[in-house]
C-alpha cells in the first residue's frame, strides 16, 4: 500500500517535470523550423516546415501527442539529426553510463580509505592538511577541474589525448581509458565531499561507548574503524551517496562538453541550442527519472533501516 503510494507520487513528479519542460520550450523564443532553414528561407517555406513538424498545434495537443508516443515506446524524432531519438540514446547512453560508473568507482576507491585514514588520526598534521585539500577540491567547479586535468595530465604528461574520445562501440578498453580522465574531473570534488562526510560520521561514531569497550578488549584501532565503525557509518552514507550519484549525472553534462565525450550531456546542451524538442524532452525525462527513482529508493531504504532498528 505504502509502496504503491510512493510509486504513484514518483510518477506524478515525472509527469509534472515533463510538462514543465514542454511548457518552457513553448515559451522560449526561437523556432525550430526557422533554425533549421536558416536566414535565407521565405516565411512560406518556414510555415510549410512548421506544419510538417507539427509545431503549429497548441502546446497541449503537442504534449498529448508526445505522451502518447512515449507510452508506446516512441520517444520521437530528432529534428537535427533526422533520426529516432532512441537511436541517439542507443549511441550515447552507454558512454554516459560508463562515465558515471567510472566516476562512482573512483569516488568509492579513493574516499573510503581516505576517510578512514583521517578518522584514525584526527587532529594530526596530515588530517589538517587533508581538510585543507578537501576544502579546495570542493570549491573548484567541475568544468575548471576538467580543463586543468586536460592540460596537466593530457597535454603536459601526455597520459591521454584531450578530445580523442573513443566511443564504447569502437573499443570498450580505449573508451574506458579515455573516460578515466573526465571521470576523475567529476569525481575529485565528490571524493572531497565524501571524505569529509565519512570522516565526521566515523568521528561521531568513535565517541560512542562501544568503542571504549572494544578498545579495552585490546582490539586495534584499524580493526575498530574497519569492522565496527564503518558498518554504522555506511548506513548513514547511503543517503549521501545517493545524492552524489545525482550530482554525477548533473556533473557529467558539463564535463562531457569539456572532454568531448559523445554522451547525453553534450547532446542535451546542443539540442537546447538547436531547439531539438524531442531530444531535450527525452533527456529531461531520463535525468528526471534517474533522480526521482534514486531518491525514492534511498528514502525507502532509510525508512526501512529506521523500522528495523
Amino acid at each position, binding site marked *: 500500500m505504502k509502496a504503491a503510494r510512493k510509486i504513484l507520487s514518483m510518477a506524478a513528479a515525472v509527469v509534472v517535470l515533463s510538462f514543465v519542460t514542454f511548457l518552457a520550450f513553448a515559451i522560449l523564443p*526561437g523556432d525550430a523550423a526557422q533554425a533549421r532553414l536558416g536566414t535565407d528561407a521565405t516565411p512560406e517555406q518556414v510555415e510549410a516546415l512548421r506544419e510538417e513538424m507539427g509545431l503549429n498545434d497548441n502546446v497541449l495537443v503537442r504534449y498529448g501527442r508526445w505522451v502518447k508516443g512515449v507510452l508506446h515506446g516512441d520517444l520521437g524524432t530528432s529534428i537535427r539529426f533526422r533520426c529516432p531519438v532512441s537511436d541517439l540514446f542507443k549511441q550515447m547512453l552507454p558512454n554516459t553510463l560508463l562515465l558515471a560508473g567510472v566516476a562512482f568507482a573512483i569516488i568509492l576507491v579513493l574516499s573510503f580509505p581516505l576517510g578512514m585514514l583521517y578518522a584514525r588520526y584526527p587532529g594530526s598534521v596530515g588530517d589538517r592538511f587533508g581538510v585543507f585539500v578537501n576544502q579546495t577540491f570542493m570549491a573548484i567547479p567541475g568544468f575548471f577541474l576538467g580543463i586543468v586535468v586536460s592540460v596537466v595530465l593530457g597535454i603536459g604528461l601526455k597520459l591521454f589525448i584531450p578530445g580523442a574520445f573513443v566511443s564504447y562501440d569502437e573499443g570498450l578498453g580505449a573508451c574506458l581509458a579515455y573516460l578515466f580522465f573526465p571521470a576523475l574531473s567529476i569525481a575529485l570534488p565528490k571524493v572531497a565531499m565524501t571524505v569529509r562526510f565519512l570522516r565526521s560520521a566515523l568521528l561521531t561514531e568513535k565517541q560512542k561507548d562501544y568503542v571504549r569497550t572494544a578498545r579495552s578488549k585490546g582490539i586495534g584501532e584499524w580493526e575498530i574503524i574497519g569492522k565496527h565503525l564503518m558498518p554504522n557509518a555506511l548506513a548513514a552514507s547511503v543517503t549521501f551517496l545517493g545524492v552524489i550519484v545525482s550530482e554525477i549525472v548533473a556533473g557529467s553534462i558539463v564535463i562531457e562538453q569539456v572532454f568531448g565525450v559523445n554522451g547525453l550531456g553534450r547532446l542535451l546542451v546542443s539540442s537546447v541550442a538547436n531547439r531539438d524538442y524531442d531530444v531535450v524532452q527525452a533527456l529531461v525525462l531520463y535525468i528526471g527519472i534517474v533522480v526521482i527513482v534514486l531518491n525514492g529508493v534511498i528514502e525507502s531504504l532509510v525508512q526501512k533501516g529506521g523500522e528495523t532498528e
Partner: protein
Amino acid sequence: MKKLILMALLVTVSAAALSGCKGGTKKGGNGSVTVGITQDLDSLDPHKAVAAGTKEVLYNIFEGLVKPDENGNLVPAVAENYLISEDGTAYTFKLRKGVKFHNGKTVTAEDVIYSLKRCAGMLETSDPEVRVVAALSIISDITAEQKDGADYVTIHLKEANTELIGYLTCSIIPKDYTDQKTKPVGTGPFRFVSYTPMKSFVMEKNKDYYGTKAHFDKVTFSISESTDAAFLKLQAGEIDVFPYLTVDQAEQLKDQYNIEVGEMSLVQGLFLNNKVKPFDDIKVRQAMNYAIDKDEILQMLNGGKGAKIGSGVYASFKSYFNENCTNTYNYDPEKAKQLLKEAGYENGFTFTCSVPSNYSYHVQTAEILVSQLKKVGITMNIQLIEWASWISDVYQGHQFESTIIGLDSQLAPSDILKYYIGGTAKNFINYESSKFDSLYKEAMATTDEAKKKELYAQAQQCLADDAASVFLQSPSLMVAVKKGLAGYKFYPVYVQDMAALKKAER
C-alpha cells in the same frame, strides 16, 4: 565479497588508465588527415544544408555545374563549359562526358535537371526541408538536348540576369535518390564514408574523379564542441588542420603548425536598425562610423590581419569590392561628438546590441566597440542571445536596436547586397534608399560587365554615404596546418578544399 568488487574496480580503472598512455600514437599520417571543425553538420543533403560550417565540408563531396575556385572565379565542374545567351535569358551548359556519381552511375541530363529543379523549388512534390534558393525562382524552364553526341542542358529565365551563374554551384545529385541525408552521393573528389553526430565526418578519395584527384586517401572532419576544445586537440597533435584560430592560439601553436592567414568572406558589421531611434537619424549613424576605430579592432582581434571595409561587399570579392568606401569615414572622435551634438545627443545615448552568443568572435568585437563608443559618450549594452532567437527576432522579426553579425553570400554581387533593398524581408536593418534600389536594379539587369561593376561600386558608395550601418571588416582567417603538409587554399566562399592538401615536398 565487497572487497573483491572494490579490487576488481581498482584493477579495471588502473588498467584503463595505463592503456590510455598508448592510445596516442595511432596516427601515422599514412594517407590520412584530420581536420578540426567546431560546428556539427546540419544536414548531409547538400540542398538542405544551411550552415556555412556544413557547406565547407560538403564542398568535397558535391559539385555543381560550376564551382568556385580560390580566386573567386566560377570554373566548370559537372559542366564542361557554358554559354550565356546575349540577351541574358538563357544559360546553356555542355555536360562533361563520363562524370560518375559515387555510386558508379553516370551523370545524365536528367540528374542535372532534377537537381536544379529541386534547388529552385520546381519539383512537383517538394520537401519542405529543402532550402530553396530564392534567386533561382526566375527560372522558367530547364530543357535538355543532344548534339554531336554531347548532352546539353539549357536554363531559360523569365527575365535577363547575368549573375545567375553564381547560384549554379547548386550540387548535382542523382535523380530520385532518397538516402541523401544518410548516405550522400555526389560527384566530388571525395566520397562519403561515415558520419557520427557530434563526433566525426569521414570521407575517402574518389578514385574515379574526372579532375585532379585528391592526394590523401582518407580525410576525417573531427567535430569539437568549441574552439577551446579543438585547441586542446591541436596541442595534443590530434588534428592536422584547423581553420578558426584566434591570434593568441595561433601564437602558441607555432612549433608544430604552420599558421596560414587568409580572409573570411564576410561583411562583419555593427548593424543598426534604421527605423529605431536614434538610428533613424543619419547624423547619429555617421557619428557611430566616426567613433569606431577599425584599425584597433583589426589589431585586437586579428593581430593586425584581416581587411577593413566600408560598405556591404567583403574584401576578398575583389572584382566588385569598392575600396574607396573604406575611407568614407576615418576614425575621428571629435567629428563624432560634433555630429551627435547636431543631432541633439550632446550627452550621448544608450542602446542595446543583440549579439548571438554562439559567435565568440562577434561577442569579442562587441566588447571592443563598447569601450570605443564610450569615448564619445555613447553607452552600448551587450545583450547575448541564442542563435535561434537571433534568426527569429533580429533577422526575421527586425525587432532589435543593433546587432553584430557577419554576412556571407554566393559569388554574386547581387547576393551580398540584397540585404539593403528597400521594403524586403531580408533588409533586416530597414534601410531605405531609392537611389540604392535603382542602382541595384540597374546593375542586376545590365549585361555589360564593366558597367555592372561601376553600378555596384556606386551602390556600395551609396550605402557608405548614408551610413546604413557601421561596416567593420572582413575578419582574418587563421588556419593551423601541421608542419609537413602543404597546399591549403583559401576561397572567397566557405570551403575546406581537402583535395588540394598534400604532403610537403622536402
